[in-house]
């Protein structure tokens, strides 16, 4: 680390702010796109194209009464949503927005941290995030919140496993866990016949990509895997007893984790900042990354608009009986092909 620490702080501060503002506008994006899918317009009155809607929502949510149930475990009740929100943000610390560039002669890393276990770090932090859900359900002193929370936790743990396994194929191919190096390896060009395209891992690991996307949707408790918190089931699940700011922390934590997983998927499978023109202008790289993230977010909203909800046993059966064997198959195939390419099989 040869850059002065104030630059690291500045970059981290910028990333954090971009995430927080982005999260507010992801809610706007979702409402507009969902509305169009449902043949209506979405927010149009608050500001041009409804762009001030997130601010209006925030003001409304903050103005509500903050109830703490009498039988609730007070400190745990207060801290549970904070855990979800914080862990969702922390996971973004290792996402590379570019390589080390030189601005005004000073080397600046366009990421907050480059761990050599970065991919596992994101998984680890996501794993700690489920405590926000479990403790929120427990602390509400409401049996249905608890059941919703436990269901949600079981779902997240199962799909986190699938998430991890689907990435092993990429680790076999790149030999590293560092997200920055995985992104840089996708800058290389691959020649398929007469075509020369970037070595994005979605081309060499399509099965892993599909598994990752399914697991990502389930991890963030989004439709069609949102049984534990759906409005018509179990009285809104684990966040039944939460109101105003605490509820918004859960709600926004979910959107942030959606964004972070989209960033993660873009970095791992779609090359992160790679695209035409990146070698000369690193700003273009950030633009490509943003476009890829928007594509993933659109996919999330598309799924929500289109698919019906899974029942809980269907959801768990899918994870353990279908996706896990497929993930293991993917690992086997990747390892086999890698050894074949190295000439170590026959």
């Amino acid at each position: 680390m040869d850059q002065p620490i104030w630059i690291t702080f500045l970059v981290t501060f910028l990333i954090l702010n971009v995430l927080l503002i982005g999260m507010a506008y992801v809610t706007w994006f979702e409402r507009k796109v969902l509305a169009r899918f449902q043949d209506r317009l979405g927010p149009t009155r608050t500001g041009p194209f409804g762009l001030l809607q997130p601010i209006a929502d925030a003001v409304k949510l903050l103005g509500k009464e903050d109830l703490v149930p009498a039988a609730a475990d007070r400190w745990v009740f207060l801290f549970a949503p904070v855990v979800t929100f914080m862990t969702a943000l922390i996971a973004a610390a290792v996402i590379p927005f570019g390589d080390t560039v030189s601005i005004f002669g000073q080397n600046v890393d366009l990421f907050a941290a480059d761990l050599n276990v970065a991919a596992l770090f994101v998984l680890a932090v996501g794993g700690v995030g489920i405590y926000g859900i479990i403790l929120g359900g427990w602390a509400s002193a409401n049996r249905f919140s608890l059941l919703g929370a436990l269901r949600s936790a079981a779902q997240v743990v199962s799909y986190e496993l699938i998430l991890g396994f689907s990435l092993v194929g990429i680790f076999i191919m790149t030999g590293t866990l560092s997200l920055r190096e995985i992104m840089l390896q996708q800058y290389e060009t691959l020649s398929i016949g007469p075509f020369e395209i970037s070595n994005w891992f979605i081309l060499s690991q399509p099965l892993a990509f599909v598994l990752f996307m399914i697991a990502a949707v389930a991890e963030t408790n989004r439709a069609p895997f949102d049984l534990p918190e759906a409005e018509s089931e179990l009285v809104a699940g684990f966040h039944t007893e939460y109101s105003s700011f605490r509820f918004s922390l859960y709600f926004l934590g979910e959107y942030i984790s959606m964004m972070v997983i989209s960033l993660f998927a873009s970095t791992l499978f779609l090359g992160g900042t790679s695209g035409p023109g990146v070698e000369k202008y690193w700003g273009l790289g950030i633009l490509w990354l943003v476009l890829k993230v928007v594509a993933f977010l659109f996919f999330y909203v598309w799924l929500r608009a289109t698919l019906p909800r899974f029942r809980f046993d269907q959801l768990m059966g899918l994870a353990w009986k279908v996706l896990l064997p497929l993930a293991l198959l993917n690992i086997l195939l990747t390892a086999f092909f890698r050894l074949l390419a190295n000439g170590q099989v026959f």
Partner: protein
Amino acid sequence: MPWDVIFFYTIAAICLFTGLLVVVSESPVHSAIFLVLCFVNVAGIFVMQGAEFLAVLQIIVYSGAVLVLLLFVLMLIDPDKLPSFYTARPLQRYVSLLIGLVLLLEVGAAIITRPAIEAIGPDTPEAIAAVGGNVQAIGRIIFTDYALALEMTSLVLTVGVVGAVVLGLPERLGEKARESRSTISLGHPRGSSDILGPGPRFETPIDVPAGRTTAPQGPRKVVMAKSPDDYTRAGEISR
């Protein structure tokens, strides 16, 4: 500013403090929460010692899986039956505290007077960086020198999974619920629930005719689900 000194003392202090709170907390759920915090700090200590892979593994395996499982079990076992902290004899607590302090002094003396070990091993930080990092170094060693241990560990894990599933099966496969549940009540406070008793009046979701103070007594018992099993078996009519 010696950052590593500050980090070490902060992380160590939080680690020991939360560890103490695990032992001392009244509610087991609080103990579990403090244990999660303790393990996150232990992961921090691993990072300080240059074992980043172990740090993230500690968080993924312990905090993210084992302790979640523990919390599940804690929350599903009837909370009324959880025993309280204090053992019958407070003498036991004081004796254990004394033993603990004595042992700490003893081990401390052993640590201070130990002979320094020379750094003779092959995996110096430069060698590890040359191989590609901590993960790659661990990978090399577990797949060559310790390959047998790796296979045995996977066998142990498989046996553990099978054992846990077998222990979790019901007494006889296919048996019905021991007690019958007929209706699940979404917060009806005036059911003949012997656990809750009369609930707060403003919670009633339906209009109760004036003069009625209990639910109509009939063959259907209205109970609250206390566990996910009850919830799924709620549809069964009482025999």
